[in-house]
């Protein structure tokens, strides 16, 4: 299934943002994190500490991604 990755801050710099990828049906956030780390090992550290959101709702590692989802990758916050 196709999903869209939207990343921010350091993850955007390392991985890019606004691109579509194919992932297996039923892919979880943990599996997506591994797939992305394998494709861009230099982003692994930032991906490990990032939160993920599926269609604008925060998602845990075992959450399953739905087809055509927008998956947002949110590195640790640093506002203020």
């Amino acid at each position, binding site marked *: 299934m196709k999903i869209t990755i939207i990343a*921010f*801050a*350091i993850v955007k710099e390392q991985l890019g943002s606004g691109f579509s990828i194919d992932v297996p049906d039923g892919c979880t956030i943990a599996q997506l994190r591994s797939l992305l780390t394998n494709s861009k090992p230099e982003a692994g550290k930032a991906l490990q500490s990032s939160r993920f*959101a599926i269609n604008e709702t925060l998602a845990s590692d075992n959450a399953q991604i739905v087809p055509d989802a927008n998956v*947002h990758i949110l*590195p640790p*916050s640093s*506002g*203020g």
Partner: protein
Amino acid sequence: MALITESALSVDTLLREAHDPKAGGIVIFCGEIRGTHFSKKVDYLFYESFVPMAEQMLNNILEEAKVKWNLHFAGAMHRIGRLEISDCAVIVVTAHAHRGEAYEANQYIIDRIKQEVPIWKCEYFTDGTHEWGGSCHCVK
């Protein structure tokens, strides 16, 4: 009131909303851009945010604080985009019958903004390098 904006922040906007005959203590926190990061000189900062989620989370934090401390008002604004040294990046205003609760709630809100709300800063240094996040002494 929770707002993420590219425009310059105004304390007056939040302060006007905070006035309440029952509020004897109004606390205003302004976070401004520091010109140094440890030994490095900062040129400017760039903030980005996932705005819809950030405003929603900011709203939730403010509502929680209002209930927890029985505040008459809680509001916060965060600026995004390019900010220069001494620009105001964030304002938090809390109003309570007494100052103790207003101070405590204000600190609670800014701490949670820094830890949870999807806003990121990138520091651009005068030596031409840049660095995302982690400018707070407490996390280094």
